[in-house]
């Protein structure tokens, strides 16, 4: 979808939908929001709806950073300590690698 041809109110609606949707444990929506609307929010000349789009993009970026931090921390901890956790580690795992601890 080419944002050039959409009226500004629809752009605002899209950005809001992506922002609100990301709260349903969908951080990729926030990632798309940031990447897709970045040019609209910060690099285009000012228009009426731009401040609101800018705020949605900023809040999406914030949420995205929080998610990335939490996931990275958890993945690092799990990969490092799964073998030591024994039974708990096995119950948490979806696929257990064969032949290694």
């Amino acid at each position, binding site marked *: 979808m080419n944002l050039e041809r959409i009226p500004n109110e629809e752009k605002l609606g899209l950005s809001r939908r992506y922002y609100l949707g990301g709260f349903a444990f969908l951080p990729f929506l926030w990632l798309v929001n940031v990447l897709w609307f970045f040019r609209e929010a910060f690099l285009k000349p000012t228009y009426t709806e731009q401040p609101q789009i800018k705020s949605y993009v900023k809040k999406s970026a914030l949420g995205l950073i929080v998610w990335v931090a939490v996931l990275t921390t958890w993945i690092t901890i799990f990969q490092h300590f799964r073998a030591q956790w024994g039974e708990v580690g096995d119950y948490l795992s979806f696929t257990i690698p064969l*032949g290694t601890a």
Partner: protein
Amino acid sequence: MGFKLYDSMSRVMCVSAAAGVLSSSVEQKIYVELNETVPCVRLLNATHQIGCQSSISGDTGVLHVLETESDLDWILSSGPHPPYMVIMETAFFNRSVMMRMKNSSRVAGVAVIVSKTGLADNFSPHTTCPNQNTGVYSASYGSDLANCNVTMWNPLGNGLSYEDFAFPVFALKDENQTQVIRKCYQDHNLRVNGSAPQYPLCAMQLFSHMHAATDTVTCMRRTDLQNRFSINPEVLCDPLSDFNVWTSTRPLNNSAKGHAANESVVIAATRLDGRSFFWEQAPSAEGTVSGIVTLLATIQALSPVTQEAPPPRNIFFSFFQGEAFDYIGSSKMVYDMERNDFVIDLNNVHSMLEIGQVGLRRGRSLWMHSDPVSRQNKSVDTESAAAGLNLTVDQPSVSQPLPPSSFQRFLRVRGIPGLVLADHNTSFNNRYYESLYDDAENLNVTYPPDLSPDEQLVYETDAAKSLAEVATLVARSLYIQAGGEKKNLNNITADPKIWFLHQHVSDCVRLLWFLGSGPPQFYIGLGPRIHGPVHSVTRFVQYILANLTGTVTNLTESQCQNPSEVNTENKDLFSYFWVSGPASVNNTGEPFCRSASVRLSKAVSPAFELLEYGSPNYSIIPQSRWKSIRARIFPMLTLGVGVAVLLLSLLVTYFISSKAELLFSSARETPATTY
């Protein structure tokens, strides 16, 4: 148009078919598959993993033959092309070298050449104190005798079988294949005057990825999780299991479990299995075969006398499977007896006589081991039995414990009187205990050089004569122990030809199909096998026993398989075998039905039935599963060559596509007609 389409399609198919054929032969041009190799696999116990493991896509390394100390330095520190795949000569397969390999990151794997040249004077990969935690001696029973404090039974043991290696270790058993490997090494990998060899080098890849890890509890838990929650469950490990073989001089009712009324039983036992460092290799001549053959000869010697002048007590013969792995078979039988799930129980047992390793007697002496803690005077009378024989029976010192034996599992539960007969006083005479090299040569089985194979079959070697004497002693002792009269003792003699069962080669004809080529291997394994649900050696012993103790019946084949329909036969007391008859010159013999009181009983550790995978009381040793095990050699080029070829081909493709009009313009003729 249709014809052209068909034509081009058939051309395409032809080319792709040719490409298919060509591609498989390209693989054959690169890789040489090594078929006659034996891997080392992973086993687990309550706390550790032992054995070997490879990466999931195989371990690759540059070949290097380890023949001298300087080769060892080359592999471990100075060679420029790590990691190396070590082809190890027999002399270097010992603990110090293997530990150095284990601690080095430059070793991708080891292939051991199995041969007698360069073999050290002794090699036992087993531990110095076999089965120390599952015997009878513990902190609460004979604590000063536990853990081999008094006698180290296997002092030459280096414990290699119980180490954990992170690289694959294979054994090369075929001399021709080893020559192929050596030739590849000599053509490409040899150092020329101290300078490193150049690429292309000969490399080897070993695949033996094991599924199991850590310990038994983890493995069984993960298997459980897989079975419950996964769409495609992967089994990670299997408990070692097979069957014990038992028989008795008076048939026992197989459907009546628990205490057998009015039965007092003398148990004669030996073990049926062995192991080595490598999977399914266990020739175990002194460790196991000596005991099996002696007990078979004993049974043969006793059967006529027990028919004519039966002793008051029954004699129960048992061959226990899995004793190398913490007494799997005997612990299962004792467990069944305790729970009244066997034809007899422990109250029926009068005494026990076990045959240990008896093949390497020094001089005339045979040793009678007993348990110092529960010893009762004169538990088994061997003096009158030994009269007139060419051997003396001695007792070791009073405070010496029992050697590792199935009898210890019986003692754990009940203090029954018993003895273990062995050819050794303190430590084993067997210098190759539980190793690949415990074969007929270890037992000094030699023939005069000019005999044909048929003549060898009936020749009475010294080893056979020695074992026959032991068997005669055991048979007479058992007869006395069962309450038989001493005047019948002289009629009990074991036949040295039992070793090859010349007279019974008829039934053996069918058995040889089970054994395959090469000497029989006594590793317990996992149960269902290619030729049937039972290990071939177990079947072999079962059928020989049926032959020795059974009677010929005139049932038809269908009656033989369903004997309950026939009035005169009793399925509870006997089992029925349909076997082929004596082989003669003209024909292979008519098959017939033989009935014998020989049975199999399941030999799997009780811990797997109780689901106590960390149990210290029973064997908890499963064997890992794996997907594929193979080995191959190939010439190896550097990564640089591969990248260079890739870049070159990309360049050529770019060049061709940019000049496409020039190169392909001759095929196109633009129609220039205008109207």
